[in-house]
């Protein structure tokens, strides 16, 4: 780790001002991604703006038909929230399957979303659910937010404040864990609300999280795992391969995890 300045604002406004003034500064949430890269000297921000003192960024509320989750809400809080468990149980399960207890008690939804790790769990869930990422500047639909590997629509100095997640969908996320890191080697989130069916895939896309349109079309006709029989799997050419899983294997797993997600979303 190199030396850096440390700021700990207590209001969103202060945080925003600090971020605007320090173009190179990094926001610090749970630190579970940022700090290891700094320790390995892969990142060397001149300043950190710690968001942990900003109370207004935490907490979970049900507003109308939407769950509103503060950016600094930890994975453990989402996993353990009675509100989430009642309104969108699949999202609680997703959060409860991230990393290990240490990670879940430090890592935040805002940090996870901002980082957009191609193997992270939230991006698939939020994309399938049609969530909205609210920042200090605007509201960004998930479909426009996750742009590519580790990149998002966020602009410099823009702070995620909360995530708005519509409820009422049949929703489930099925994760095939990387045996080493236990991030998603393939994760498939399936949501069905009325006529809208969304299938979002993480861990596999060469360009990050993506929606699997063919599967969505088939499931929109009939929401059952069987509908996926005969649907062409995502082309391995668009998927990533590494020592743990070839693109072909990932493609295959997408089919398996999608079926299991449909089954789980159907309450089976």
């Amino acid at each position, binding site marked *: *780790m*190199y*030396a850096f300045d440390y700021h700990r604002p207590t209001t969103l406004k202060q945080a925003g001002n600090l971020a605007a003034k320090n173009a190179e500064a990094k926001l610090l949430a749970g630190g579970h991604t940022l700090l290891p890269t700094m320790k*390995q*000297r892969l990142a060397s921000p001149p300043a950190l703006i710690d968001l942990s003192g900003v109370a207004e960024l935490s907490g979970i509320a049900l507003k109308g038909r939407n769950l509103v989750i503060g950016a600094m809400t930890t994975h453990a809080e989402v996993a353990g929230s009675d509100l989430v468990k009642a309104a969108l149980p699949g999202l609680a399960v997703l959060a409860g399957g991230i990393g290990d207890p240490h990670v879940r008690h430090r890592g935040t939804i805002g940090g996870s979303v901002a980082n957009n790790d191609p193997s992270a769990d939230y991006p698939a869930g939020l994309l399938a659910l049609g969530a909205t990422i609210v920042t200090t500047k605007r509201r960004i639909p998930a479909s426009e937010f996750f742009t590519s590997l580790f990149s998002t629509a966020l602009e410099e100095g823009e702070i995620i404040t909360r995530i708005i997640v519509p409820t009422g969908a049949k929703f489930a996320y099925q994760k*095939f864990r990387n*045996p*080493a*890191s236990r991030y998603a080697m393939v994760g498939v989130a399936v949501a069905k609300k009325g006529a809208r069916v969304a299938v979002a895939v993480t861990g596999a896309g060469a360009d990050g999280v993506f929606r699997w349109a063919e599967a969505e079309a088939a499931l929109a006709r009939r929401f059952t795992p069987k509908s996926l029989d005969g649907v062409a799997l995502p082309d391995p050419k668009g998927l990533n391969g590494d*020592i*743990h*899983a*070839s693109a072909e*294997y990932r493609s*295959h*797993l997408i089919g*398996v995890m999608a079926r299991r997600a449909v089954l789980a979303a159907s309450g089976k």
Partner: protein
Amino acid sequence: MAATGIGARVERKEDFRFITGRGNYTDDINRPGQAYAYFLRSPHAHAAIRKIDTKRAAGMPGVLRILTGADIEADKVGGLICGWMIHSKDGSPMKAGAHPALAIGKVRYVGDHVAVVIAESLAEARDAAEAIVVDYAPLAPVVDLATATEKGQPAIHDAAPDNQVYDWHLGDKAAVDAAFRKAKHVTRLDLVNNRLVPNAMEPRAAVGDYNAGEDAFTLYTTSQNPHVARLVLSAFTGIAPEHKLRVIAPDVGGGFGSKIFIYAEETVCVWAAKKVGRPVKWVADRTEEFLAIAHGRDHLTHAEMAMDADGRILGLRVKTRANLGAYLSTFASSVPTYLYAPLLSGQYNIPAIYAEVEAVYTNTAPVDAYRGAGRPEATFVIERLVEVAAREMGQDPAQFRRKNFIRKFPHQTPVIMCYDAGDYDAAMKKALEAHDVKGFARRRRESGRRGMLRGLGYSAYIEACGIAPSAAVGSLGAGVGLWESAEVRVNPIGTVEVLTGSHSHGQGHETTFAQLVAGRLGIPIENVSIVHGDTDKVQMGMGTYGSRSGAVGMSAIVKALDKIEAKAKKVASFVLEASETDIDFRDGKFTVRGTDKSIDFPSVALQAYIAHKFTGQQLEPGLKEGAFYDPTNFTFPSGVHICEVEIDPATGVTRIDRWTAVDDFGVIINPMIVEGQVHGGIAQGIGQALLEGAVYDKTGQLVTASYMDYAMPRADDLPSFTVGHTVTPCPSNPLGIKGCGEAGAIAAPAAVINAITDALGHEEIAMPATPQAVWKAVRAVAARAAE
């Protein structure tokens, strides 16, 4: 007293300090004025060093000194050694390339030590290391084990132009050829024993300290054998003679073999302490451990086994290529030779065995002993062969094994070992029953109904532990003797300190050794403390590895206790005014036979020290005895492990559904500790079989250099183990102990792979059998079925 003696489940005395954060590990040691070392490591697998420019770095804040290979040369610091000489088939000695603590002229693997920066803080040392400019001329790397010795490959060491370290063999080739000519069936297998990275919870660390007033050094280090470290640092690197070098291995958080070896970093810390005039501390981070700790295993093997028409084994032929990495680590040469081939007979009566082992250099981290060291590799070969042979011959794998079990002891194998005692059939019977193998067919059908594949695999392993009779290993090339020492110091009020030359880094010696002493002397276990890990306290010892501390280390304590008892009896005879021969010692009391005249052990201790009841001419005061114990044979723990898996063919995920282990460790001192050792060993073996595997890319970069990519077994990867024992006491040591530390890691890989291949309809699969590998195998089976 029975509650703490041999055989009792005594809770570990050391656990209080470990689990309450009161342990004293090397990183907990901070010396006044301490500075910090940071090693600049090679980013190249193979490169010549043209120039190292440290000028700018040396002027950076906090920097005390930067040392490179040039300083090693100038100070004539000797290179690291490999302490076991192996001769090739043609009689030529192994080709050991120089192994300087800091690279001289050339780097040979990613992580090799190029320079060390000593600074006021670690961060400053690291900053300065980044400012060192090294001019490398990259050379083609030799990474692939299979082709490392082919023509046209660049030489890693001048001493070994074709990258071959040795080409060794053991056994009778002609007898094996004759056996194969008689064979009715031959089973052939190509096996990979995957390369592993040891991952003790505590990374390696060292603090070097120099006392200018006495011209004496102290090295605090994460070592399994501090005396051997001192011996090597004195006799070979020449940093200081033994009486001027104290090595302390305090609490050590796991070793698994990887902390036996003498490494560059600790050598540099102790050497640099004098050069900078300050204590120097280094603690490895996890990435450094992945890159530069000695790795384990890494064999390619072709094996063939010949059977008669009934399935009786006639002969075994094994050809192995072993990767020793870029330099010969401390005991590297012995692992794929004498710790491997002599175990290839397994539990079986095999009349003829011939093994050839070619060891090679590659541009990868050094490879040396890792939990089991050679014996897991041997077990994997023989237990995979036996399982596949039985299947090929249409025989039940358990019955096939039983048919071939050795049943008469002692049994001389064709590969050095003379098995002294065992009852392999008893363990097999017990395991079959405990596992409910009879119910397997039903369980398999039930899995099938859920679309799952179920398989069962055996591993009937044997290992040679209690290493070892010194003359025997000396004749095989070992540079040291493998006896152990003990000193029992009885204090005047009857408490006891035992100094042992073995070292505990997870094994629980402070408990088990105390159980022995408390039981023998009839004193409370809290009155016994075990002292180890400091060359100023314990005079000499060989350390802990190879499951030797019970069989050898405790035997030394028994010898010393015999002397204590004899001396105490003499003291008692003066106090009780009786003849020594009329005194019995039982339950902590010396009693004049046939009378009620007695004195307890603590009172005798006091009498020994106040020395009022005898004169100096009659008896020396005091009660302290030492002993060296040199074993007369190896010990031969053995057992049967049964693994049952369920595979999800849709994903390739293997779940271990049940595990049964029946081990024969001889006499067991503390069943709880033994079970813990078995559990941990099985976990490591399952790790090797399903998860772990070091991967280098073509350029020699370690791809699996962190836990993001190197998969360690976690609790939820493992089933609850059913562990049982049979007991045939070891005849060659006074306690009848065989050793238990490595058994699980030795037995498990073959059991897992035998179970998986059983589930897959005999499709072969390499370790680690990751979900992807299993899925591919499932598809291959399906494709063949469709043909």
